[in-house]
């Protein structure tokens, strides 16, 4: 069965520190891969996506993600976190139907 695993339910980082959110997927073939962000009470906003080509993809708000086929991973990174990055982050994988991970809540401490 197709699945997406986000191992970390909560992560707390200091403002200005680097960030990495983990995502692993289980899929029959290399799926399309996405990261979304959700602020409290809001819908989901697309941060970035991967479907082919360069394995390091750039997104909005200074985020990037690296696709590693050998590890079935698509980890999200940011070099320097801002307080406004505090939100819940979802990894998703699939074709025309996306499967979402359970989400990682990011807290930023000043």
């Amino acid at each position, binding site marked *: 069965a197709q699945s997406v695993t986000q191992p970390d339910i909560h992560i707390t980082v200091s403002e200005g520190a680097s960030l990495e959110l983990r995502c692993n997927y289980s899929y029959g073939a290399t799926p399309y891969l996405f990261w979304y962000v959700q602020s409290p009470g*809001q819908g989901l906003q697309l941060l970035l996506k991967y479907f082919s080509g360069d394995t390091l993809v750039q997104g909005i708000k200074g985020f990037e993600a690296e696709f590693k086929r050998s590890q079935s991973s698509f980890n999200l990174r940011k070099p320097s976190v801002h307080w406004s990055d505090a939100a819940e982050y*979802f990894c998703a994988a699939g074709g*025309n139907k996306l499967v979402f991970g359970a989400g990682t809540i990011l807290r930023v401490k000043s």
Partner: protein
Amino acid sequence: NAGVTQTPKFRILKIGQSMTLQCTQDMNHNYMYWYRQDPGMGLKLIYYSVGAGITDKGEVPNGYNVSRSTTEDFPLRLELAAPSQTSVYFCASSQIQSNYGYTFGSGTRLTVV
């Protein structure tokens, strides 16, 4: 562009009542989806549609029904509300080429008491 519009934003239902969650998109997207979001569970697919007149079940369809009479609209129907349907519901749409990702509505928070 309004994108994906969901109504209502909040609703409280009594057990056994019925209601329809509305979803409209103005991007001429063929694909539309309904997900429910529960704390710590991520988003689970309820139903989806690949075009007007075509719908199919997702991972958690029990207790729900959908219809797709136009490209723009994809309402979700709850016939006999149960406490287990307390959740946040999101409608989304996408182009045929799904590598563009989804556009999400702002959600409907439903409480069944």
